[in-house]
């Protein structure tokens, strides 16, 4: 009998071929967290430029205080499902706060953002339904499709005409759920929300928008790209996560559908897992209040995003998209991407190394994400380090002006 793990041999070989010298992304250990934007890695003080900590709220004293109080009052965990003993006052308060933020009737909170997608997509669309997803969708959306009994169709990334074409081919018989993201996490490109909503409305489909990377980042009160585009009430479902702007872990889905609450009994990833611990719920609730009422964090985040984008662009780098809090540097050569990633880390800058098949178009990316907590000085250091290392490796050939 063969080894169960033989199927991983190609992956093992591919990983070995990447040629990391000192460290590889899965070996990075944050030995000490100094602040939302700094940690000690391999004994070295390092600027964190790849943590999706968009609003920098992980150390907000109000969130920490709320978490402490909940921990003391309600203990370390719920030890139960939301439908058994795992619904505390805090869970209901958090759901109410998110529903209020979106002006929506219903909100369900899940134990992770990944589960929010698996549970809502996989349950809402059933055997006779069709799910139409953007080609560049996150792994959790693809996996939700795999778990669903629905027919799965994929449309060209961010292309309303292609979506229109596919919906036309599908005809009018089936119920269709379209799933897109607000901001795509790898390249940092935004969905053409208005145009996609227009196509969706024309075909009478339902739309779910995953605002994982856009909650707290776009829109007047931080609801995401749907709010910025002014289509919040044209969108049937919004899902998101607490593990980025909210600074903790968990996920949610909001909707105005009159029968939405039945998902609490139908969605297995909601029922058959333990609910979020009270301290996580408490800090999430505080952070949701902050992101809705304090636009200054958002404004600071965007100043940082523009500074990094401008800095890297004028240094000569090829970037993934227009300015956003996700700034992806495209590196043509895979081995060079690996080497630069490692040298950035050795020089005190942590970014994300992203490669196919996790990236679209076969791209190798040094993906940065900004935080409102970054200082102007830190962003300058990120740009300077990128530029210096790229020049010494002849990735950028032009001498500095």
């Amino acid at each position, binding site marked *: 009998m063969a080894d169960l793990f033989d199927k991983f041999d190609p992956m093992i070989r591919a990983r070995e071929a990447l040629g990391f010298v000192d460290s590889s992304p899965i070996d990075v250990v944050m030995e000490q967290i100094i602040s939302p934007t700094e940690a000690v890695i391999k004994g070295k003080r390092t600027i964190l430029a790849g943590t999706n900590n968009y609003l920098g709220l992980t150390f907000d004293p109000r969130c920490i205080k709320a978490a402490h109080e909940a921990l003391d009052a309600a203990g370390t965990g719920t030890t139960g499902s939301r439908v058994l003993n795992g619904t505390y006052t805090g869970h209901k308060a958090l759901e109410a706060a998110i529903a209020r933020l979106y002006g929506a009737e219903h909100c369900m909170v899940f134990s992770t953002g990944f589960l929010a997608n698996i549970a809502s997509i996989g349950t809402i669309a059933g055997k006779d339904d069709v799910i139409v997803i953007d*080609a560049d969708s996150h792994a959790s959306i693809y996996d939700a499709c795999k778990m669903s009994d629905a027919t*799965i*169709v*994929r449309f060209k990334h961010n292309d309303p005409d292609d979506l229109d*074409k*596919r919906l036309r*081919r599908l005809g009018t018989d089936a119920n269709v759920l379209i799933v897109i993201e607000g901001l795509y996490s790898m390249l940092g490109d935004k969905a053409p929300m208005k145009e996609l909503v227009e196509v969706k409305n024309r075909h009478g489909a339902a739309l779910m928008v995953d605002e994982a990377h856009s909650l707290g980042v776009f829109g007047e009160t931080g609801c995401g790209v749907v709010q910025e585009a002014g289509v919040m009430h044209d969108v049937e479902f919004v899902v998101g996560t607490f593990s980025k702007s909210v600074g903790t872990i968990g996920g949610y889905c909001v909707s105005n559908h009159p029968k939405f609450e039945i998902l609490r009994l139908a969605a297995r990833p909601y029922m058959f897992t333990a609910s979020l611990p009270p301290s996580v719920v408490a800090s999430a609730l505080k952070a949701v209040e902050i992101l809705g009422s304090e636009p200054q964090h958002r404004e600071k985040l965007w100043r940082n995003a523009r500074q990094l984008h401008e800095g890297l662009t004028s240094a000569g780098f090829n970037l993934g998209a227009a300015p956003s809090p996700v700034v992806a540097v495209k590196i043509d050569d895979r081995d060079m991407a690996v080497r630069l990633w490692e040298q950035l880390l050795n020089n005190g800058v942590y970014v994300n190394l992203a490669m*196919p*098949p996790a990236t679209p178009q*076969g791209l190798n990316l040094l993906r940065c994400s900004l935080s409102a907590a970054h200082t102007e000085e830190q962003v300058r250091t990120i740009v300077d380090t990128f530029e210096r290392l790229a020049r010494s490796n002849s990735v950028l050939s032009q001498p500095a002006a």
Partner: protein
Amino acid sequence: MSNALDEIVTLIAPHNRKGVAVTASSTFATDLEWDSLTVMDFVAEMEDHFDIIIPLNLLPDLETVGQVADAVNQLIEKKNG
């Protein structure tokens, strides 16, 4: 009965980086060495070429070019009623 095989072989040609001889028994993963993204992009290309929908649910069962051609033939027939 339509026959999509020849057209699919033609559509594969520009993506046949290994330059392997493509027949009905060629496999996408092993012979053509396509990853899952390349396969899905090719599905989109076939959808547009034949004006059909090829659900991603079918992919796990489609390992060879011939199996894809059979599936496409069936989808074309279904479309034409």
